Each structure stands twice: as structure tokens, then as C-alpha cells.
């Protein structure tokens, strides 16, 4: 069964520079299907950048990333990489859901319109079917009655839950979460984490950049600690968070807990 052994994400010595600043300095990682990977680390460690490289929102400068066996951003012929055309990039991105720190809902559309927009525009799903599916998704994130509300009329937690429903509407095989609760008031964090917990329970492959250590411990299959653009340490949450092997992990956890 080659399907079962193929990783959902594979990164091979990924490098990324912003000008002269080297943000990623050789990342090697694998994420298995149905796995929930928690990316932790101090700000500026490159974890968000790495996440954005997976769906090619950022172009990498060296190395390669595969999602579900397909090279991200390029077509490889021998030792030459051909940049993919915009339409091919879009097609691959459509299969990867992404949730942003600042929600990035479309403010001129209602919650329902936010959720049906991409399926109708990108996947050509007929309106009736898209609406029916969107209502089910909004119900799943506990916002069935907010379908006709504009983002400005929703709390931060509600907006982020709509954003999750919007990403799920594309039926992604992988979900990327970029600090999904960092912009929320403390009392609203729980409702978003509950939705993510359910999603993990349902078997979604997830990569989550987070500062919520309790959540990482409970929901993550694996915790990866990044610092200075490299992976310092990784393993089961209980191990990494409770008995970190590296000094840098220890001092980070001491500061955050």
C-alpha cells in the first residue's frame, strides 16, 4: 500500500531568505496523513514562514517541499525546476486550507457568502449545493444563526470560526493554522480551539503554529520546536513539553509557561 506510507507533507532542506536575513536554514520535516503537528517556537523563529511556504504564499530559495507527493511551486525535470503557472499554483492551493492569525474574512460578504465564494468561483460548485454545504459547515462551527452576518458584526472568535468553515468548504486534504488564536481576547480562544479539536478528532491532517501549549499537548500528535530557522527538537507532546532535551527548548518553555 504505497498510499498509506506517502507523507502528506515532506520538506527537504528548505531555505528561505528575506533580503539578507535567513529565516529558514534547512528545514527537514514530514507530516503523515491524519497527523496533527504543532509548530512552536519564539517569534521570528521562522515557523509562520515555513507554514506559508507549504502553500507557496512564500517562495523558498533552496530545498523542496512536497504536498501529497506533488512538488510545491515547481515542476521538476531532471535537475531543473520549472516554476508553475499561476493556474496550476491555484489548483494546488485549493486543496490546502489555511487559517490566518487575523482571520482575513472578506468584509464585504456575509459569513455564508464568505464560505460559498471559493467553491463556486474556483471549483464551479452550483450555488444551491454550495449554500447547502456552507450551512452545514457553519452549523459544525456553531454559527448556523450567523450566516447572514457581516464579519464586522461578529466577535473575533466567531470570525475565526467562519474562517475555518471557509477553508473547509474547499474540502482540503491538509489544513494550515497560522497562530489562529493569537489575535483573540482570552475568553474567545476556547471556542476556536474546540472547533480545531473536533477537526483533529475527525482525522484532518493539520499543521498548527501556536502558543497554546495546553492545546498542543492535548491535541497534537507531535510537537516541533523551531528556533533561529531550524528544527531544534521534535517528538510526542508529552516528551517535548515536559522533558525537553535541548537547552533552547527548555528556556523557551520556561518563558512561556
Amino acid at each position: 500500500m504505497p498510499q498509506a506510507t506517502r507523507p502528506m507533507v515532506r520538506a527537504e532542506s528548505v531555505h528561505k531568505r528575506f533580503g539578507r536575513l535567513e529565516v529558514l536554514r534547512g528545514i527537514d520535516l514530514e507530516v503523515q496523513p491524519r497527523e496533527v503537528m504543532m509548530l512552536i517556537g519564539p517569534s521570528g523563529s521562522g515557523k509562520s514562514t515555513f507554514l506559508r511556504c507549504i502553500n507557496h504564499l512564500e517562495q523558498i530559495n533552496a530545498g523542496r517541499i512536497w504536498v501529497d507527493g506533488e512538488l510545491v511551486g515547481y515542476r521538476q525535470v531532471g535537475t531543473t525546476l520549472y516554476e508553475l503557472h499561476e493556474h496550476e499554483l491555484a489548483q494546488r492551493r485549493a486543496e490546502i486550507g489555511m487559517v490566518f492569525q487575523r482571520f482575513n474574512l472578506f468584509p464585504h460578504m456575509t459569513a455564508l457568502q464568505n464560505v460559498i465564494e471559493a467553491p463556486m468561483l474556483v471549483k464551479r460548485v452550483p450555488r444551491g449545493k454550495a449554500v447547502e454545504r456552507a450551512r452545514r459547515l457553519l452549523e459544525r462551527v456553531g454559527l448556523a444563526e450567523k450566516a447572514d452576518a457581516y464579519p464586522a458584526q461578529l466577535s473575533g472568535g466567531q470570525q475565526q470560526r467562519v474562517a475555518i468553515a471557509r477553508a473547509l468548504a474547499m474540502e482540503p486534504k491538509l489544513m494550515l493554522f497560522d497562530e489562529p488564536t493569537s489575535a483573540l481576547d482570552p475568553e474567545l480562544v476556547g471556542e476556536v480551539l474546540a472547533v480545531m479539536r473536533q477537526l483533529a478528532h475527525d482525522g484532518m491532517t493539520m499543521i498548527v503554529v501556536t502558543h497554546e501549549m495546553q492545546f498542543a499537548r492535548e491535541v497534537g500528535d507531535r510537537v516541533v520546536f523551531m528556533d533561529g530557522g531550524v528544527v531544534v527538537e521534535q517528538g510526542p507532546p508529552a516528551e517535548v513539553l515536559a522533558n525537553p532535551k535541548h537547552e533552547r527548548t527548555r528556556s523557551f518553555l520556561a518563558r512561556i509557561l
Partner: protein
Amino acid sequence: MAADVEHGTTFTVVPVRRYGQIVLAGVVALLVAWLAAAGASSHFINPAVVGQYLLNPLILGGLANTIFVSIAAMLIGIVLGVFFAVMKMSSNTVLAAVSGFYIWFFRGTPVLVQLIFWFNGVPAVFHDLALGIPFTDVIFFSMPMVAFMTPLAASLLGLGLNEGAYMAEIVRGGILAVDEGQVEAAQALGMVSAQTMRRIILPQAMRVIIPPIGNEFISMLKTSSLASVVTFGELLRRASDIYSSNLFVVELLVVASLWYLLLTTVASIGQYYVEKRFARGTARAERETPWQAVLRNLMKLRR
């Protein structure tokens, strides 16, 4: 210490008297009254003539032409503006430079010069207007330039191209005002840049673009009077055609001005409602309109 009063007493509040303002208002009112009296007693304006020409068929035709050329030039300007705004933001240097040149040239020269250039200059330089394959002798279609460059064509070209340059900067400002996260969210959902622009960026940019478009349109209603120099029969041209034969110069200028005032007033009211429509998703959209306020107060009166 003020005298003690019983707890819960209602006080009388005396607003401060602004004597300077009262004196100034009196002086201004006097000046206005004096001007009005001077106007009324003068023999230059004959109100009967104004009334007589207000609904003259030539004037009404000119009014229709003013409305038509303003709307048409505005539409040309908006289409060109969106086109050149997107072009100027292109990562391709040639496209950005060509757009930059267009904006620089058409904003940097007077509209009046551009109008005369299209009407008189172009037919003098180019004899024929031809459609063919450049740098070959293949021609699909050709006509004399003087036949093509009618007063209407010159007005639309002059006003439209000039407006396009201003609109390009307005549209570009609107696009830049949209949060970058919107582009990322759209891309992450699998939209290509054209879809992102059409469905996500432009609708949000509209909120920023609409108020200046309203101002541009109100300005265009008046600027269109410049088309009179290329003999286009808009409002001012018709008024001047009439006064050059009957010599009621001031009366006809008053007639034209009254119509311009009506047009700009109607346009201002329209602008208010259009802005409201594009403010969807913000608090501004939920506020009641002046018309709704009037209706609400009328309902109160009936009770």
C-alpha cells in the same frame, strides 16, 4: 461656595452669549441684502427672459447633451482608470511605465488643450483613420479623419481620456487601501489574480473609490461645458448660441447656471445613496438615510 440647594434640584443652564458672532452675522446679513437689492434693481437681468428660456427646446437639448457626454466620458474614464491602475501596479516594467506616462501626460496638460487637440490638431496631422496591421500595407477599414472626429467624438476623447488619468490614480489608491491579507486569503483558497481582483479587491476598493468618483462626476458635469469650444451642442454652447443672436447674455448664462446647479444637486444626492450601498459590512451602512429620517419624523407628527 454656591448656596446650598435641596438634593435633586433641577438647575437652569444659561448658555454663553457670543456677542462677536452676533455682530458679525448682522453685518454679513446686511451685505447679502444689499447685494440682492442691487441685483433686483439692476436692468441687466430680466427675470421674464430667464423664465422664457429655461424650458426652451434648444436649452433642454443642450441639457440632455451635457448629461449624456458627462456620463459617457465618466464611464470611459472609469474603464480606462481601472485598466491603467492595474497596469501601473503590474510587476512588468514596460506596462507600469506606459501607464505612468499616460497618467503623467493627461493629468499634466489642460483639458481645454486636449479637447482642441483632438478636434483641430488630430485631423490636421492625420488625414485618415485606418484599421490595419501595423508596419504593413494591409488595411481593413479606413475613413477620413474629419468625418470621424465629430464634436461629440472629440468631446468624448478629450474628456474621457483626461478623466481616465485621474481615475487611474483614484482606483490605484483604492486598491492600495485593501488589506494585503485579503489577497493572501483569496490565493490560499485557490483563486487566481484576476478572480481575486474582480471578486475580492475591487469590491472593497469601491468603498474608497466611490466618494471621489462622485466628486469627479460632479466636476465633470461642469467641465463638460469646455466641450463648447469644439462646437459640441451642450448646455453652455446652446445658451451662447442663443445669446449671440438675441444679446440676452446674462439671462442665458443664468439659465445655464440654474440647470448646472440642479444637475450637481441631484448628483450629490445620488452620491450619498451609492456610497451607502458600497459601505456594506461597515457600521456606516446601517445608519438611516436623511429620507428615512424625514419619513420617521412625519410618522411621529401624525401620531
